[in-house]
């Protein structure tokens, strides 16, 4: 047993806290949290585990799932928590995750059921709501603001505002073992525990900025520990198959060390950390979040040990007056068809296949072609790259993407590719087609007084 951990996991105040990340997106490795929790337990001291699992589209899919009678939260939630929940409860390591998606109360109930099945003590589960601007029936002033961002006739499937860290912090301070959120700003998942632990005021802009930076570095999981980084010969990363997810050790003054569990793969270097600091950043002097405007201009990194990088210098400015909401609405249908041509004259035959199909597509179809094997992603988005010539392309896969508001039109377009087997150029092989609905997204800025974030104990 760990002796240094007090009766309450957070709130000790002055000593540092370790925050581990168990998932960086909905599709992340299901067992990633296991070595992280083992490390938090072995090291002892105040600690917290966070899960980021809610990309823009993930929430729209969850909302759709809920309307169709399924769960409105991540279907892998239980698989992720099952191997770590007992240890987290036993060692007072709170869990904070946005795995509530479109149904935080439902996710909380599922976690309570998991705890009963595992025979743990009953967890105190907090649920954060107020991000969902649609499900409760829209207030007229909100309805107008959302409608203004959508094309004529479009109906929002999901509209969620990015909440900040205050409710997460309040729930943790009240003793929550698990905090289930829907849409919150990703860094808030880490900032909430930091505010609860150190008692930072939200007007202490530099500390709130530091906590936001910690969250930003953790929220993409292994992207800071050598994932999405390797470039063999230039940037070599050991043992990606067993890459360790990150742990941040944050001090009361907001300085931090980024590290990972001992014995895992991956690497934490100034290079991996710099890449993640700037990931999805626009103006580095003004990264807007619900809690602070983060200024990265003075941030410094230093290697202070193997797989240990110190990060300091985050500066903060007063939070924005408005909150950002993301709105999802139906975006028609995407179809994709692929077929391969190999050997002599492969590119010419692939091009002939494209030229056979295109005249048969209906007017409502928008399309893009690619000759995979010559180019697959670098081409422009106006099909000008299709004029490419390559004498040595001898194994080419024609790929055509088609889009329309009409599902039938996409279906009919994909049907045309089947005829390549009998009507098209010689040697076509390996035809595959697929289609799926798409979502468009729009953003709206919502005045804070129209949003009512709150937390409650789960009734499950």
């Amino acid at each position, binding site marked *: 047993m760990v002796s240094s951990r007090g009766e309450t996991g957070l709130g000790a105040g002055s000593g540092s806290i370790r925050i581990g990340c168990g998932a960086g997106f909905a599709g992340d490795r299901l067992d990633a949290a296991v070595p992280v929790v083992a490390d938090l337990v072995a090291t002892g001291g105040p600690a917290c585990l966070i899960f980021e699992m809610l990309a823009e589209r993930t929430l729209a899919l969850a909302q759709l799932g809920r309307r169709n009678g399924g769960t409105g939260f991540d279907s892998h939630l239980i698989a992720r928590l099952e191997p770590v929940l007992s240890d987290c409860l036993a060692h007072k390591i709170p869990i904070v995750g946005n795995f509530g998606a479109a149904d935080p109360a439902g996710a909380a109930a599922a976690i309570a059921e998991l705890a009963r099945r595992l025979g743990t003590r009953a967890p105190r589960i907090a649920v954060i709501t107020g991000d969902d601007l649609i499900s409760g029936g829209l207030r007229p002033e909100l309805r107008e603001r959302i409608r203004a961002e959508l094309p004529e006739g479009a109906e929002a499937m999901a509209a969620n505002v990015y909440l900040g860290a205050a409710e997460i912090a309040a729930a943790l301070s009240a003793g929550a073992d698990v905090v289930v959120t829907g849409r919150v700003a990703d860094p808030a998942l880490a900032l909430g525990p930091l505010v609860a632990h150190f008692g930072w005021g939200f007007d202490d802009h530099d500390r709130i900025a530091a906590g936001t930076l910690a969250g930003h570095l953790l929220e993409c999981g292994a992207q800071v520990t050598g994932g999405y980084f390797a470039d063999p010969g*230039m940037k070599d990363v050991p043992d990606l198959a067993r890459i360790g997810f990150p742990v941040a050790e944050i001090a009361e003054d907001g300085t931090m060390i980024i590290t990972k569990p001992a014995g895992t793969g991956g690497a934490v270097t100034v290079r991996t950390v710099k890449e993640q600091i700037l990931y999805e950043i626009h103006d580095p002097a003004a990264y807007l979040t619900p809690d602070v405007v983060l200024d990265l201009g003075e941030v*410094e990194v230093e290697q202070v040990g193997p797989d240990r990088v110190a990060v300091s210098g985050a500066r903060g400015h007063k939070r924005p007056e408005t909150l950002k909401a993301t709105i999802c609405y139906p975006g028609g249908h995407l179809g994709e068809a692929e077929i391969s041509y190999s050997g002599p004259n492969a590119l010419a035959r692939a091009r002939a296949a494209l030229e056979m199909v295109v005249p048969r597509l209906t007017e409502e179809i928008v399309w893009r072609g690619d000759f995979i094997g010559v180019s*697959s992603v670098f081409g422009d988005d106006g099909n000008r790259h299709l004029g490419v010539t390559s004498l040595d392309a001898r194994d080419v896969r024609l790929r055509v993407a088609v889009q329309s508001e009409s599902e039938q039109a996409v279906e009919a377009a994909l049907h045309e590719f089947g005829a390549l087997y009998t009507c098209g150029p010689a040697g076509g092989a390996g035809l595959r087609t697929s289609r799926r609905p798409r979502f468009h997204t729009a953003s709206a800025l919502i005045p804070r007084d129209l949003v009512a974030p709150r937390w409650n104990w789960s009734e499950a």
Partner: protein
Amino acid sequence: MSREIELHRVAHARSGDKGDRLNVAVIAYRDADWPIIRTEVTEERVRALLADRQPGAVRRYELPRLQALNFVVDNVLDGGVNQSLNLDGHGKSLSFRVLEMKVAVPEGWIDFKEEELK
């Protein structure tokens, strides 16, 4: 005297996206590589590299303490990941498109890997 090499040997890079806006962080491998990227990797040259996608605004931000440049490029993601017909709707591969840029280095310059072997 100088010669031209691929930026890939001087800097590493990562892309991110939000809607139809791309960012590419270009990070010097060593202190000695920072002045090279600062001089060579300009807004104009990034625009030229992505010219086939007809970029809107291209902005460069300098982060001297990280020895990094952050480029923010509008309208090169075919509407963004939810609308693009490109296999790479996020523009994740475009960091390596930028690393294809030819940059001038002084005669006698060696990359950090060659330096490690010395």
